[in-house]
């Protein structure tokens, strides 16, 4: 056991600190919106150029071209957190689509999309779920038929986060209707301005219109927008989902949230109350357990050991824990905990109330808790698939 990073990394830490000192004055507040203001986009560019966002994306695609180094990433996280400075935009394009494209895209596609995406100029949405295909994603029906040099798309997507802000969608569509369920899917990029595409906002329980329905009525997409081969979409799409799960339930965010929750309990004078202390310590134990658990996973990755079953629980536990932390914080606020953003008496402009609701969404999104448990029991514990589910794997 050795939790130190060694001298060369401490040197790197000094570099990060120097960058932060030099740029802190222009950094936007830690939580930033999705498309971002000009200030946010300016910040995003500085981060990309400095190598503090999309660090390992090759230079020819507009990245910094650093060798993958997990410890450097951790140090960047630590120092940015300590300085209270935003790590830049974390949207589906940057965290999920770019890594997928690097793996499966051709040279033209990489040159075209990666640069603008990581600089925050191009926003993406994920067109996977359909009204009839959620957990059983591979049953999706939205069709894409090749007509000359274009795919013609018909069908509907649902729960599409940020569809209205996005310029582009990465979508799963059925291109081979006669192939078995998993082999008939392709991964296509769709321009959100294409004729025949309409978006209808869906209001989330938080009151925000965070996700949408997207309808395709003979939407034409050039053939070159296909990522990977025809019929390879399930494989490509699953790669994106792995990146999504790595993002959801990440332990450093949970620890931040726990630390802020302690402050809330203190502010509301319940930190010395036995019942609250008891609840807080239960959460503290789970938070630290997940923190050290992610260090254990990190060590496995550093040592190039294949991920073991224990890695499968990060999303399940992390999302549930985030929700429980928010619940404790709003409980400590008593009636004040019910107030929404903009109300008189509201604390932190309703951030915890929003969190309390939004984190519940993340327990469902990206694969529900129940689906995660299926995966853990099947892959982690070697238990059999449900006879019915055996015909079509869930997401």
């Amino acid at each position, binding site marked *: 056991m050795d939790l130190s990073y060694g001298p060369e990394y401490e040197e790197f830490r000094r570099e990060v600190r120097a960058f932060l000192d030099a740029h802190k004055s222009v950094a936007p507040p830690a939580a930033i919106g999705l498309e971002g203001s000009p200030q946010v986009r300016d910040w995003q560019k500085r981060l990309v150029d400095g190598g503090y966002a999309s660090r390992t994306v090759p230079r020819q695609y507009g990245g910094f071209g650093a060798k993958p180094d997990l410890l450097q990433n951790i140090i960047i996280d630590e120092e940015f957190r300590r300085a209270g400075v935003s790590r830049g935009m974390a949207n589906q394009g940057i965290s999920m689509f770019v890594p997928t494209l690097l793996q499966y895209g051709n040279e033209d596609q990489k040159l075209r999309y990666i640069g603008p995406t990581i600089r925050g100029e191009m926003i993406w949405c994920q067109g996977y779920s359909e009204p009839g295909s959620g957990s059983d994603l591979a049953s999706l029906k939205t069709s894409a038929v090749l007509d000359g040099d274009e795919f013609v798309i018909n069908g509907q997507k649902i729960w599409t986060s940020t569809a209205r802000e996005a310029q582009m969608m990465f979508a799963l569509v059925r291109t081979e209707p006669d192939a078995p369920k998993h082999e008939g899917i392709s991964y296509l990029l769709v321009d959100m301005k294409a004729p025949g595409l309409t978006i209808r906002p869906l209001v989330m329980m938080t009151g925000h219109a965070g996700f949408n329905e997207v309808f395709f009525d003979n939407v034409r997409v050039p053939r070159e927008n296909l990522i990977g081969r025809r019929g390879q979409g399930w494989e490509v799409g699953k790669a994106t989902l792995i990146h999504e799960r790595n993002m959801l339930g990440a332990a450093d965010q949970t620890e931040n949230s726990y630390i802020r929750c302690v402050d809330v309990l203190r502010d509301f004078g319940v930190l010395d109350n036995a019942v609250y202390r008891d609840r807080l310590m239960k959460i503290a134990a789970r938070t*630290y357990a997940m923190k050290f658990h992610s260090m254990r996973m990190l060590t496995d990755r550093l040592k190039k050991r294949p991920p073991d079953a224990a890695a499968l629980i990060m999303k399940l536990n992390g999302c549930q824990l985030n929700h429980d932390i928010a619940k404790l914080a709003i409980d400590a606020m008593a009636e004040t905990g019910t107030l929404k953003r903009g109300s008189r008496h509201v604390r932190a402009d309703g951030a915890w109330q929003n969190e309390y609701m939004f984190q519940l969404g993340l327990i469902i999104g990206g694969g529900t808790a129940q689906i995660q448990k299926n995966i853990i029991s099947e892959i982690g514990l070697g238990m059999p698939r449900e006879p019915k589910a055996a015909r079509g794997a869930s997401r």
Partner: protein
Amino acid sequence: MDFGLSDDQTLFQSSLRGFLGEKVPTGRVRTIMESASGHDASLVQQLGEQGVTGILVPAEYGGTGLSLLDAAVAAEELGRAAVPYSFHAAAVLAPLLLAASSNEARKSEWLPRIAEGRATLGAIVAGPEVRDGRLSGSASFVPDAAVASAFVVRCGSGPSAQFHVVPRTASGLRVEALSTIDDTRRVGEVFFDGVAVDAGTNLEIADASAGFERALDAARIVLAADSLGAAERSLDEAVKYALTREQFGRVIGSFQAVKHMCAEVFAEIEPLRSLLWYAAFAWDERRDDAPMMAALLKSHACEAATEATTTCVQVYGGMGFTYECDMQLWFKRAGYNRQMLGSPAALRELAAARMS
């Protein structure tokens, strides 16, 4: 950066698991736990040969003088195998207190015998008082009370506390057995009726109250490890059973209700293991957060293990509720660990107090 067990520790773990699997199968566990004393001196000697009893005994006294993280690895295996042995007391509390002592005579009397597995010492954490060179009072829940060769007795509390080593045969000392839900670790009540103590029995521990808290935290950490072992083993057994038992024409392990029970236990146990490693490491390194982590760990491990073993008994259905089924061993073991040296609620309170 290297978070996890070293190669040596992994090797120690697998060889101890192999040894216990072969020499202490649940059949032997049952024979020992059903015996009157619940104690098998030959088992303790075998554990001595495996380096288990002397793991925290300094090398100059015949032990291996390893770290608490090593002890936690051992404790997890003892819990997995439900070994009838009070590791947390006999191999952790007693030797750590002895090792902190400056009384050379007592150290060289007991430490080598502990390391070899030829003596078991009970540890008394509260109860008796010294007046005019005599001990009076009583202590309950004393591990191995009926079979210990001697007791390390904490007399009084706070900075003025003294620690004496009192042989079980001392005049004025009387033991009565208590029977708990867990027959694999026996406890008793020890009565002191004017037992003579003097400079020869006094351990002379410098900074006694800090030293004692530290030893107690170590014992809590290994009890947590024992609970983790019990929980893991229950899950292993439950999954195995679920893959063979059939109902409605299919193995019960193909029912999602059963799969989810097992997945939940797994998801609870794995981060606990990471927390255990960190807490033991923090203790070894005397990190600032070590006292808080010890308390958090023990409370969390005991909650998780009681939950896990409760769930795993249910995977077995009615079979799980029989005396014959081994699930009872780990269920009861987790129940014992839960209450000893601080219940989950008490330790959460302690952790909060230790939170900076």
